[in-house]
């Protein structure tokens, strides 16, 4: 934790050493073109600091519009940030074309929809050979050997059966495995997976999640898992980061955040999630919908929906405070001076 002008809290798994990828104060404001709100901005991501150490999975959880996908795009450098910087292995990332290509070889994105992220007119062999040629300059028979090895690493065996297939001949889960294999071709340090299983059939989702888990162990990858499904985040991740309206509201060890949420928004998410073990009727901890990011609420952005809101919540944004252990949350309830007599349960 470094203290510059304000103490900045870095979210993500705590591990000794330099994280594989670190984001400091990432902010993205999209300009609004045309219409009555011309000249204003959509505050999609505000001041997010995140560290992804190798051999860990960090889950980013939130509703649509929470900024979780924008965050993953900022980390791939597909979107240029309004403010903030990225550090790969502790080194600031440069802006030259050479630096960009080097970055693309280290940080790879797996997209949500394996039906459109693979090119329908090319075979699996072609998809896997491209990155090997472009990033490693491989030629000849070595290419095919490496392509086959990649398929084996994502459990598509025997590889010969898949190499000459086309995307439409594979199931959704197999296509997502090919997309991950293609990502591994460049030998990345960091894998950014944006809703990698939400388009897949229920019975094959776990297979892909387990594959990500094995890659973390075996390849020591730093994985960012972006999802709306808090149960799968709990299953896979070391650390869960909860985003609301472009800001991180809570982060901490996955089981701790889901078993003892500190932020009222995390509690709302958990109370709404499907749970077959639930015996009593659902009591929603808050109502309404996320706010517009062009004109976000003052103070804490969650206060209009929060069942525990206090006057201070509308006035100023709460600082990030420790809740328990490595768990932190941005909520006035955690402030001993502001909180009413009862601490949050």
């Amino acid at each position, binding site marked *: 934790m470094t203290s510059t002008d304000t103490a900045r809290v870095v979210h993500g798994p705590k591990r000794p050493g330099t994280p594989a990828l670190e984001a400091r104060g990432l902010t993205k404001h999209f300009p609004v073109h045309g219409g009555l709100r011309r000249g204003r901005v959509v505050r999609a991501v505000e001041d997010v600091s995140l560290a992804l150490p190798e051999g860990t999975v960090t889950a980013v959880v939130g*509703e*649509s519009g929470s900024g979780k996908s924008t965050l993953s795009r900022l980390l791939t450098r597909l979107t240029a940030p309004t403010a903030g910087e990225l550090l790969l292995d502790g080194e600031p990332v440069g802006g030259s074309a050479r630096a960009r290509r080097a970055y693309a070889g280290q940080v790879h994105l797996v997209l949500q929809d394996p039906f459109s992220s693979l090119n329908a007119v090319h075979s699996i062999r072609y998809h896997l050979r491209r990155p090997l040629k472009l990033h490693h300059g491989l030629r000849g028979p070595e290419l095919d050997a490496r392509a086959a090895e990649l398929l084996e690493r994502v459990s598509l065996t025997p590889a010969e059966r898949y190499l000459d297939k086309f995307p439409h001949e594979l*199931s*959704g*889960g*197999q296509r997502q495995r090919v997309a991950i294999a293609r990502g591994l071709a460049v030998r990345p340090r960091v894998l950014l997976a944006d809703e990698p299983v939400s388009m897949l*059939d*229920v*019975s*094959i*989702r*776990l*297979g892909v999640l*387990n594959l990500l*888990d094995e890659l973390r162990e075996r390849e020591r990858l730093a994985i960012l898992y972006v999802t*709306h499904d*808090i*149960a*799968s985040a*709990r*299953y896979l991740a070391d650390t869960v980061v909860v985003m609301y309206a472009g800001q991180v509201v809570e982060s901490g060890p*996955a*089981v701790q955040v*889901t*078993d003892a949420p500190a932020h009222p928004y995390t509690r*709302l*998410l*958990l*109370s*709404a*999630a*499907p*749970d*077959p*073990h*639930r015996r009593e009727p*659902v009591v*929603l901890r*808050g*109502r309404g*919908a*996320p706010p517009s990011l062009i004109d976000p609420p003052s103070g804490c952005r969650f206060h209009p929906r929060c069942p525990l809101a206090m006057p201070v919540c509308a006035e100023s944004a709460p600082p990030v405070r420790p809740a328990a252990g490595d768990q932190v949350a941005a909520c006035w309830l955690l402030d001993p001076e502001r909180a009413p007599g009862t601490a949050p349960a």
Partner: protein
Amino acid sequence: MTGEPVLEVRDLCVDYGVGKGGVRAVTDATLTLRRGEVLGLAGESGSGKSTLAYAVTRLLRAPGVITGGEVRFHGPDGVLDLLEADAATLRRIRWDQISVVFQSAMHALNPVARIDAQLTDALRAHRSRLGAAERRERAVELLRLVGIGEERLRSYPHELSGGMRQRVMIAMALALEPRVVIMDEPTTALDVVTQREILDELMQLKDRLGFAIVFITHDLSLLIELADTIAIMYAGRIVELADAQRLFHSPRHPYTLGLLNSFPALHGERVRMEGIPGAPPALTALPAGCAFHPRCPFALERCAHETPRLTEPAAPDGAPAPDGAPAGRAAACWLHTGGEHVPAPLARVLGSTL
């Protein structure tokens, strides 16, 4: 919980295409929906759950063809076979007695018509004696029912959020007080909080107005909280049918067990789960015998060439059928036809505490 039947489906078969190129999308589906009940239809994409619902309402479009079975609807004026009904009868029954909420409210609403016009359209067609003022009054009442204010009457669909649009769809489906509402993935595209709000409202409306719901979804964990009875579909067949609690705590079909093991829990120890190996089959290349046998960890030799029928499991599961409902549960699996050793996970007994 259970009343008299409102909708009975017997041995329904649906094909897509005829002759050589045809595939069977639904095979021998048998279901009973009772008054005020929520019947859940769960399955993966291509399992035939939506096809079944569209066949029942006769909304199936070519190349879909109903090739067998019967659908008996118990209406206010007697029992009617929907598969035999002519166009005029269907027109009278649809929306009035059986209504449908489609998956994507974004596309199901007319983008160039205001909400009030779309809400009163059904009233104009089915309740011709109502005047304009009465129709408007009813539209306001319907919107209030689903938690939307009167000021939204003159809005266009694009001015509403996704959750509000889905609420309008539900209000439209309830406009004529039907006996049966069929909902095809009504909340899949919505965020969890919005989904929960809408489902809460829906269940309250159901208790108040007494309609029955057929709820189609791929999310079994949600269905267990919501439904009274659940039918699990795989490759066009119903493979297990049971009340929600028994299906969850003592599944009988290996596919149901696999599906239940595919949803990570929100509580307890984190344990590695395995899901189901392989992928669902294409309808054009269904395996012989039980369609699930290539993915089944308990497959027997006969599973590869004989197709099991949906029957009551031979092993007693220890719990009496709720409220004395007939045929408490059924599974289509050779393990439960008697004489076979049933693996422990498929022989669990529902705890007496429930």
